[in-house]
């Protein structure tokens, strides 16, 4: 192996791949060959770097120089200037909004500064398709420690002591879950990795699998040893082709090294793993539905008790944890429960991965210590709201979560605080909304999602959400009635109470929280027939202000329904009957002559 003087870490997470990361990689290979540098510079494809908003991304080591928004055209210059001549290229670096000079080093960029990586410790720093790179960063050493120096009881004790709680949403203590499963009678037990991430706007689990698949395998191996299971399943969405490919490669490599199979690491421990692809039904993320799906049945939730730990896959004791939970396990065993428990808050230990999306400047994947405030995540890491607009709300926990208003931005991010605010930690989706977002419309969107994804087993979830959706649609169309708010509140309680699984039990949360924190918006829609954010098409009108209109004709030419008429240099007029309220005239007018009310 040549002694490389430089490593180019090319992000090939799904976000950067769709922005052409593989074309960037090919261009780098071409140019590096052209300058005969292939024995000096190594190109490494990594999983998601996290700063998805600015992809494609290349990080250059040993100096940690961060290049972003690269195009193929940039590559010849970059290779010659920096990689051949040693002069970093400032124009390809990241410049924070409202700043003039770029920040060359990745660790100085605000987006990365406040992050603390445990589950994502290897992101962007290893090639997920090369097992040796994982091993080089203490990979499988937690497993070796667990197999050679710890009893299963001791492993469980260590996980309990660490305070690790399930990262899939509910936050159940992981060690306790393992202990319950271990204590069941019988030799045949199963473990499952739930990689059926379905929340809109969430991509934490996908990114962990894409950037560090071995961390999940190692976590599962340790868990299997602790619980006494010899077989595991990874249930992953078929819409995640890259994650699927990388986990399959990882399993093959681990099998070659004897890390999966019989007599692992020379001990008597045996473990086999299967990968099952999910067809993308949201309800399959619910553990009992997932188990039904694994068995080839319709993904309907089961009645609990018995819990999966007592009677799960094929009626045998089954332990199911989320991707991020498994990824934390090797680090806890390797570095100790005390180390892990020193991070976070009293009741929520460690870190949490969030996919930060919506109207923030820096969208992407972030991992932060528990207890950090929402404000720090959104404004320090996320870089604030796009276009200098005002923050309105942040939605955490996906369709099961709720909307948290500005007044509560300083609450610490942990399981209890978010629940108290009416939302949930969930699996880690975080959607930021600005002043232009209509909260009634947000509630309608999420109810439309859960209504569509309801499996139909429970009446309240199936029909209750449908009624809620109809009421919300009516309100956004200006046909809301005074009693609708009360009806929504009543239905919300009933759907929560009358549903078997988490999908129905949490589906009303977006409605409940928007009603609690943004009731005035509902009232404006219902009583005044106005949408304060000017989003609901039935409740807004576009008009042209005569004093500002210069008759340039831009709006007339751009209008898709020819609803605007007017002679050159004369006042233009919008025909309200033809107008479809697309807002193109508003966006294209350069004289602020179009208003919306």
């Amino acid at each position: 192996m040549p002694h490389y003087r430089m490593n180019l870490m090319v992000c090939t997470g799904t976000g950067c791949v769709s922005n052409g990361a593989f074309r960037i990689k090919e261009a780098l290979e071409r140019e590096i060959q052209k300058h005969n540098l292939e024995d000096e510079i190594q190109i490494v494809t990594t999983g998601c770097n996290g700063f998805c908003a600015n992809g494609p991304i290349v990080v250059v080591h040993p100096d940690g120089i961060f290049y972003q928004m690269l195009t193929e055209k940039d590559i010849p210059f970059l290779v010659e200037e920096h990689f051949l001549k040693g002069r970093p290229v400032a124009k390809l670096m990241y410049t924070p909004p409202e700043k003039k000079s770029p920040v060359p080093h990745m660790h100085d960029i605000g987006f990365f500064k406040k992050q603390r990586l445990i589950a994502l410790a290897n992101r962007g720093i290893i090639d997920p398709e090369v097992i040796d790179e994982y091993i080089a960063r203490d990979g499988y050493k937690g497993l070796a420690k667990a197999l050679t120096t710890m009893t299963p009881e001791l492993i469980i004790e260590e996980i309990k002591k660490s305070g690790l709680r399930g990262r899939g949403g509910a936050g159940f203590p992981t060690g306790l879950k393992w202990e319950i499963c271990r204590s069941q009678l019988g030799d045949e037990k199963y473990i499952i990795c739930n990689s059926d991430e379905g929340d809109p706007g969430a991509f934490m689990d996908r990114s962990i699998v894409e950037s560090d698949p071995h961390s999940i395998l190692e976590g599962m191996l340790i868990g299997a040893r602790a619980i006494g299971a010899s077989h595991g399943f990874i249930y992953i969405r078929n819409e995640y082709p890259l994650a699927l490919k990388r986990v399959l490669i990882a399993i093959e490599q681990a099998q070659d090294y004897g890390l999966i199979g019989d007599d692992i690491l020379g001990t008597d421990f045996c473990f086999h793993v299967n990968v099952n692809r999910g067809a993308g039904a949201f309800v399959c993320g619910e553990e009992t539905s997932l188990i039904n799906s694994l068995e080839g049945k319709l993904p309907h939730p089961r009645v609990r008790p018995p819990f999966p730990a007592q009677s799960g896959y094929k009626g045998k004791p089954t332990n199911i944890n989320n991707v991020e939970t498994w990824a934390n396990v090797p680090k806890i065993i390797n570095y100790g429960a005390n180390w892990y428990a020193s991070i976070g808050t009293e009741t929520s230990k460690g870190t949490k991965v969030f996919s930060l999306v919506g109207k923030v400047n820096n969208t992407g994947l972030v991992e932060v210590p528990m207890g950090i405030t929402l404000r720090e995540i959104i404004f320090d890491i996320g870089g604030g709201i796009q276009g200098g607009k005002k923050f309105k709300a942040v939605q955490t926990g996906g369709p099961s979560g709720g909307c948290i208003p500005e007044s509560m931005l300083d609450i610490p991010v942990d399981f209890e605080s978010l629940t108290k605010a009416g939302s949930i930690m969930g699996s880690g989706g975080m959607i930021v909304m600005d002043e232009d977002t209509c909260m009634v419309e947000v509630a309608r969107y999420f109810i439309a999602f859960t209504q569509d994804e309801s499996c139909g087993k429970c009446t309240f979830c199936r029909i209750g959400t449908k009624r809620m959706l109809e009421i919300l649609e009516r309100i956004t169309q200006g046909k809301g009635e005074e009693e609708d708010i009360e009806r929504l509140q009543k239905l919300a309680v009933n759907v929560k109470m009358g549903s078997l699984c988490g999908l129905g039990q949490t589906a009303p949360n977006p409605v409940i929280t928007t009603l609690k924190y943004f009731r005035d918006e509902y009232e404006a829609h219902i009583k005044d027939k106005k949408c304060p954010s000017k989003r609901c098409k039935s409740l807004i009108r576009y008009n042209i202000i005569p004093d500002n209109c210069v008759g340039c004709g831009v709006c007339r030419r751009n209008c898709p329904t020819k609803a605007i008429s007017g002679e050159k240099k004369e006042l233009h007029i919008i025909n309200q009957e033809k107008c479809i309220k697309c807002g193109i005239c508003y966006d294209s007018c350069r004289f602020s002559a179009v208003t919306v009310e």
Partner: protein
Amino acid sequence: MKLKPEDLDKISEKMKATTMLREGAGRVKITVHMGTCGIASGARKILSAFIRHIEKADVKDIIITTSGCAGLCSREPMATVELKGEPPVKYVDLTEEKVAQIFNEHVMGENIVTDYALAVGSERIS
């Protein structure tokens, strides 16, 4: 190959050069200055010579990198050798022979080759 627990450490050792490079932390960091002046006076050969020596000695705790012009164009090619925890040493007017000596005595032996050294330390950045 089926691994035993001790094999994990062997793989880590084999990958050490890669790990250190990406963490930017080695026992020694060698920087070859590759401004236009450096390249014109043969910095490329100096860089290649250092890399050859590292490969031949099969040591993994050395980071070799490049930077732009160091500001003293008349004394190029130049290189800076920095042992961990010690101030950097700048070498000037380098040739491949001098590189061999610097590699053996300073990089491996940790003794500064005073004959070729310009100065110890760096200029202050305000």
